[in-house]
């Protein structure tokens, strides 16, 4: 573990222990170590002693905001659908939040999914999380049995091999173009704050836009061809909280359930579109995907357009309206068919 990560881990543990001991929070949501190199598990600490299991490293790729609404609800006293809301303050939850996670909390606040007063946010500035798949690719098919983080390097070793790679070369695509790695809201800031200057935030998207339509269609269909419809992307996403997903609607059934091309395509199009203007590019979908589909490129295109057409960036201001829940009289409408009045 790098020195920075070790320090952040210690501070997270100390703060979580303090908050749990004092009774200020009923649960603390962070990460704990996984059973394989480069894996972590979201973890709910409920007793001060659990705090020692919390960790921080470059593999904390899931978005913890995803767990917040259900975790908060689970701490409320049980009540029937017709019972009045409980009087008095409800138990609070502490949570570690990077820039994207904090932005997702803001989106959840805008959409009334979480109550800010019940959250104690430990903000951590993200150095960019590492993409396990990129490290695997660097190992060229050899199984990594140990991965050690240095300041700017990753030391990967396995049976009969050892290799050192530049950390930045293995950082997730979304982190490479992230302009908000510092938390936008927090109660405590942990670790150093960084200010990365990111240019070409949408370069990946512009490259695709520059392709001819047939090539784009091929790119899209090839990208999703391996999809097994496990919905890991949807379930890892903090934006996806509908009680009944459009995928599960039966009256009417919008999307077929098979993995035939039209069904898979429709799933990915509609999933991405539901995230339009709300996606913080946290990359949890891609990190969760077992098949390595780069579905982030779909949501990224929508983010680019929402930014360019409506000046909207998701999750920066709790008071703001999500861009598709509002309008301006002079919104662009060049895409319309215009017929002059005769």
């Amino acid at each position, binding site marked *: 573990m790098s020195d920075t990560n070790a320090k952040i881990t210690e501070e997270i543990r100390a703060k979580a222990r303090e908050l749990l001991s004092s009774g200020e929070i009923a649960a603390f949501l962070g990460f704990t170590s996984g059973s394989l190199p480069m894996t972590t598990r*979201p973890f709910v600490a409920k007793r001060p002693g659990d705090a020692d299991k919390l960790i921080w490293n470059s593999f904390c790729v899931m978005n913890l905001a995803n767990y917040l609404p*259900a975790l908060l609800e689970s701490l409320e006293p049980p009540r029937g659908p017709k019972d009045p809301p409980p009087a008095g303050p409800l138990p609070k939850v502490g949570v570690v939040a990077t820039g994207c996670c904090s932005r997702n909390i803001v989106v959840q606040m805008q959409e009334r999914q979480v109550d800010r007063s019940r959250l104690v946010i430990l903000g951590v500035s993200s150095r960019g999380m590492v993409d396990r798949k990129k490290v695997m690719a660097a190992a060229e098919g050899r199984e990594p049995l140990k991965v050690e983080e240095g300041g700017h390097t990753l030391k990967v070793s396995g049976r009969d091999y050892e290799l050192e790679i530049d950390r930045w070369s293995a950082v997730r695509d979304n982190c490479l173009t992230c302009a908000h790695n510092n938390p936008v809201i927090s109660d405590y800031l942990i670790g150093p704050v960084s200010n990365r200057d990111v240019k070409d935030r949408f370069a990946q998207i512009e490259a695709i836009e520059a392709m001819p339509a047939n090539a784009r269609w091929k790119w899209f269909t090839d990208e999703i061809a391996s999809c*097994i*419809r496990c*919905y890991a992307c949807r*379930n890892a996403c903090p934006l996806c909280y509908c009680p009944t997903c459009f995928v599960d609607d039966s009256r009417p059934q919008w999307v077929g*359930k098979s993995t035939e091309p039209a069904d898979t395509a429709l799933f990915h199009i509609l999933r991405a579109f539901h995230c339009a203007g709300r996606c913080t590019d946290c990359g949890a979908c891609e990190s969760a995907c*077992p098949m390595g589909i780069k579905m982030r490129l779909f949501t990224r295109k929508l983010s680019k357009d929402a930014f360019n057409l409506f000046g909207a960036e998701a999750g920066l201001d709790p008071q703001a309206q999500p861009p598709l829940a509002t309008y301006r009289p002079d919104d662009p409408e060049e895409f319309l068919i215009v017929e002059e009045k005769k």
Partner: protein
Amino acid sequence: MNILRLDINGLLDCLSSWAGGQELYGPVKDGWRRISRDGLEAVVSIPPGAPKAPIKTFFLAQPETLFTFSARHGDDDAWIPTPPKEAPNRRVLFGVRPCDARSIALNSMPYRDDPYYQARMDKTAVVGLSCNETCSTCFCKSVGGSPYGTEGLDILLTKADGGFIAEVLTSKGEGLLEKGTGTPAGDGDMARLKALRDAAQAGTSDTQALSASFKAKNLMQLYNARLWQGLSEPCLNCGACTFLCPTCYCFDIQDEVVRQAGRRIRYWDSCMFPLFTLHASGHNPRGEKIKRVRNRFMHKLKYFTERFGALSCVGCGRCIRECPVNIDIREVIRDLLSVE
């Protein structure tokens, strides 16, 4: 059972004849790909462990068309079900790891009377490749398998001394080999094979030990164990584990009608999804995540074991590697066994 020695050219000849006469599939990168005669090199060297894509794709088609029908009102045969006329194609699956092969045998227990599964079984020959080298996530030995296991296979190849020892296990396997293929294995080969098998089993207890332990456990005590709460907390309730698992075999059935052509399909489903158990009334017997997570593991380790005598897990390690939140079935097994 016939045991042969094959050199690499002998193997390439076999592959070439299979690729020509029927459909040949092998593990390429993460998936199972159709191998053509001029692409045989792709499967000659296979990395350790099972490929990411599960072998069940070949037996539980995604989707399987149960039947088709005309949805044109007024047609005499409107809505009359017609089962698929085409029999599945003849296939050879090459480079199948013994864990995956075992999953075919395990799944054929619940699917014993299933015409679609059985038709695919009939038409598919499975050529295995034993695991001289395993991955850190492999645990076939602790769930009743072996890196040199033969269950579910027609031929098992073991790499040894620059060539292969081929164990021809079934008459279907016999049929795959042309007369004069390879040479009869010598005593040295037999000794080599035995040594590899013994070495792989060294240090492990009886292969049936784990299923016996689970059979002996009280069902409701396992069901009510405390561990499910913590285990299910990080779970996203996605279907990655179920869909990549070679022994998860649950499915859903649905009708589809497009432009007056209709079909009833069956496709993979996952007990991780809330919809899996939702009644039309709105009642959901496994409405909470903890119940669904519990059901998946209980089914693999306890329910299936009670019904069929073996665990519904072959130790391939896919779920451990691909779970987005690293839920590790080995830990679940360990913790369940300690439930008193």
